[in-house]
């Protein structure tokens, strides 16, 4: 996950803050986890969020999605439903118009369905 994050941020320092990652702390099914990332920002032409990038720690692949915004967005908030293979950390990184990076982390516990079923 660290390498995938560095692909986006390069050598820049990623500070914690500004980003809010809304994920249920315990999910009933890891196949569809509702997730909302919001970033505080005036969203003006001079000061806005350019993009939001979401990563996970224990999935077979660390990237979840890259969302490209811009000043016309009005509010820097994106919602999606994601897959979590196991209980793990999710990291959301926001890239600001001034080139800085901010992040937030959430821990999610994923329970598996109690009864298995055959694959149709």
């Amino acid at each position, binding site marked *: 996950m660290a390498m995938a994050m560095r692909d986006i941020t390069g050598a820049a320092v990623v500070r914690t803050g500004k980003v809010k990652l809304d994920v249920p702390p315990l999910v009933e099914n890891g196949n*569809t*986890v509702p997730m909302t990332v919001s970033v505080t920002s005036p969203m003006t032409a001079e000061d806005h969020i350019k993009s939001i990038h979401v990563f996970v720690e224990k999935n077979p*692949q660390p990237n979840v999605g890259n*969302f490209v*915004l811009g000043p016309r967005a*009005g509010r820097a908030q*994106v919602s*999606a439903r994601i897959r979590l293979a196991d209980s793990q950390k999710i990291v959301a990184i926001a890239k600001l118009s001034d080139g800085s990076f901010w992040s937030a982390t959430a821990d999610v516990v994923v329970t598996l369905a109690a009864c298995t079923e055959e694959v149709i």
Partner: protein
Amino acid sequence: MASALINVPKKAKRGDVIEIKTLMSHIMETGFRHTATGELIPRDIITSFSCRYNGEEIFRADLFPAISANPFIAFFTTATESGTFEFSWIGDRGFSETASASIIVE
């Protein structure tokens, strides 16, 4: 027979920040699953989604296998003028779908 469900407010006041919700029918096969006999099921996902508002791109997303099946994406935009939103989904195996919605901005 792909269907899309779009939620765009029919009307808004100029300057309002509105939420757009989209849902597209797609299996989003991760490429990490195996059949009962052990063969790898190849990846088949939507890789990108974009939204144009009267022709100008206002939102774009790169999607990865970690996005759930039947991808739901919600985002915001500022209502600037009446017109049309055009949505486009592109993915593996030549997947390409579009949808549109109109808005009246007063």
